[in-house]
């Protein structure tokens, strides 16, 4: 019991530190020689990987095509701003819903598959959207990507807030917080416990009369929704989106970030994302062969740290 309280206390301390670090990030990030867009990028990708981890780490669905929903969110937001209405909240809302709806529609195709087949089908479905984005030139901008939109100031009654880099970071942090609260809530609900049970022993759940495919479908749709939200923010961050945001390489990166941080831990994906994004940013600035190094990181993590960083800290504790 004592040990347990100690764990809980330490846990709260770490969480408070984490949130404090996130809130103050625009002040200290330049001090360590970085730039605040990188902070936004880490949070955005972190949100995407944490959303994916609902499906991946907690439900056990090996989705290797999650970039599709990230990209749909990004294109949804960009196209809303470009063709529909100059409103940032509307762009986020439409992009997020587009990601969620796409996942909800495609979910039935994958919800009954397991393991390796689940992975294969999600990869292939993801590529469909890639080619739509590349080929539907006059709407999506094709290979060159969708440009020509800009995130718009926020309006609160008579008060207008222009979104510079720092303010946009706080908008990202707000969306991130909403996403985290939502995911936390879901994982602590009966739904979340059912997901974990399906991951642990799907067949047993079926014998107990649980419609496991419906739960996997729900997980797929929610992961798509959250990843879509992250995608919209990514489009707004760069005022640009390209087919690379839909490509399976990005899907693989997402999975790698999760594994790196620890897929059985709620916060693992965020840690993995932070390390991965910073490493990629740094490596690509010092060597043209950064892809080789990223590849070596993949191989090294798989062979040496399959449980991820937080997975090693967490050993022996409960997973949620």
């Amino acid at each position, binding site marked *: 019991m004592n040990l347990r309280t100690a764990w809980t206390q330490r846990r709260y301390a770490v969480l408070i530190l984490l949130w404090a670090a996130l809130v103050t990030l625009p002040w200290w990030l330049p001090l360590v020689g970085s730039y605040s867009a990188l902070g936004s990028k880490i949070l955005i990708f972190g949100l995407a990987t944490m959303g994916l981890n609902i499906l991946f780490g907690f439900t056990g669905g090996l989705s*290797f095509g999650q970039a599709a929903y990230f990209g749909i969110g990004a294109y949804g937001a960009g196209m809303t701003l470009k063709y529909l209405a100059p409103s940032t909240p509307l762009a986020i809302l439409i992009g997020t819903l587009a990601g969620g709806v796409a996942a909800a529609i495609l979910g039935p195709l994958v919800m009954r598959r397991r393991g390796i087949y689940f992975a*294969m089908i999600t990869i*292939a479905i993801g590529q469909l959207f890639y*080619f739509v984005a590349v080929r539907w030139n006059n709407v999506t901008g094709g290979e060159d990507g969708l440009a020509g939109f800009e995130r718009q100031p926020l309006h609160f009654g008579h008060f207008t807030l222009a979104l510079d880099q720092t303010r946009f970071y706080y908008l990202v942090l707000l969306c991130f917080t909403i996403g985290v609260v939502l995911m936390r809530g879901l994982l602590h609900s009966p739904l979340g416990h059912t997901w974990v049970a399906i991951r642990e022993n799907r067949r047993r759940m079926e014998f107990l009369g649980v419609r496991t495919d419906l739960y996997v479908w729900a997980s797929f749709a929610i992961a798509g929704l959250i990843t879509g939200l992250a995608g919209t923010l990514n489009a707004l961050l760069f005022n640009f989106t390209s087919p690379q945001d839909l490509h399976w390489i990005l899907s693989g990166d997402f999975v790698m970030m999760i594994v790196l941080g620890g897929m059985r831990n709620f916060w693992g994906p965020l840690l993995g994302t932070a390390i991965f994004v910073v490493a990629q940013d740094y490596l690509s600035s010092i060597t043209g062969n950064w892809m080789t190094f990223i590849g070596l990181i993949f191989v090294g993590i798989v*062979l040496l740290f399959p449980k991820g960083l937080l997975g090693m800290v967490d050993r022996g504790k409960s997973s949620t």
Partner: protein
Amino acid sequence: MELLFFNAFNGLIQGVFYALMALGLALILSLNSVINMAHGGFLVIGGYLAFTLTPYLGFWGALVVGPLLAGVIGLAVEQTLIRKLYKRADPLYSLLLTFGLALIIQDLTRTIWGAQGLPAAVPEALDRPLSSTLFFITGYRVVIIEITVAAAAGLYLLLRYTLVGIRIRAGTRDLESVAALGVNIYKLRALNFAMGCFFAGLAGALASGILGLTPPMGDSLLMPSFVAVIVGGVGSLGGAVLGGLLIGVAAGITTTYYPAASEAVIYFIMLVVLVIRPRGLMGQESVFE
């Protein structure tokens, strides 16, 4: 009409490459339980090695040795990396490992041979059209089809009639029982992986004469090959070939009428197959449903 035939034939050639890739993927998937994301990398290795060796070995020699070397490199990768993952039940790790390998291979290819594409030459005698009306049917394209048929038939005979082949087929059904009967499944899996990489390398060596050589060419052939495996039916080699040819020709025909959709149609076919017949055209029920 001629345009349709022209595009359909181009699609068939593409489909042949998909089918070769899908054969290797399906082999590795069924016995090694690995989704080989680096399969496109082995295609590129085969293509570039064949190109590099052509001045020394001649066109035909390189066409044989290039893919064989891809198989040998595949064997080395299997021995050093992949085999460590067999004990892990989760397919995630082999997926990530081969994904990392794909990045490494693509990057090293770019470093060694350059990011610009290389024009792989086809012998003069093969580059000529066979008839003046059907100008697109060159000798080389016929050779591609012949070699592919020969390779697929060879694989079929190997799996059907040799001891190794029978063991491989038995292993895809129940690996533990095969091991319990005294077969060294590690050697079996290593050989199988190398064979899969050989097929990828063969696809690369053949494709270089049509598509040219670029470091990311493996990527663009990898995904359709996945689709070929899914459409044909996981666990069925014949299905993989059929799936590859089907989506290749379908993409070719689509090019005639609506070029922009020629890639998307491949994935559309997959979605339709998944809805109507989830196990794939020739897949066995137990594997997939």
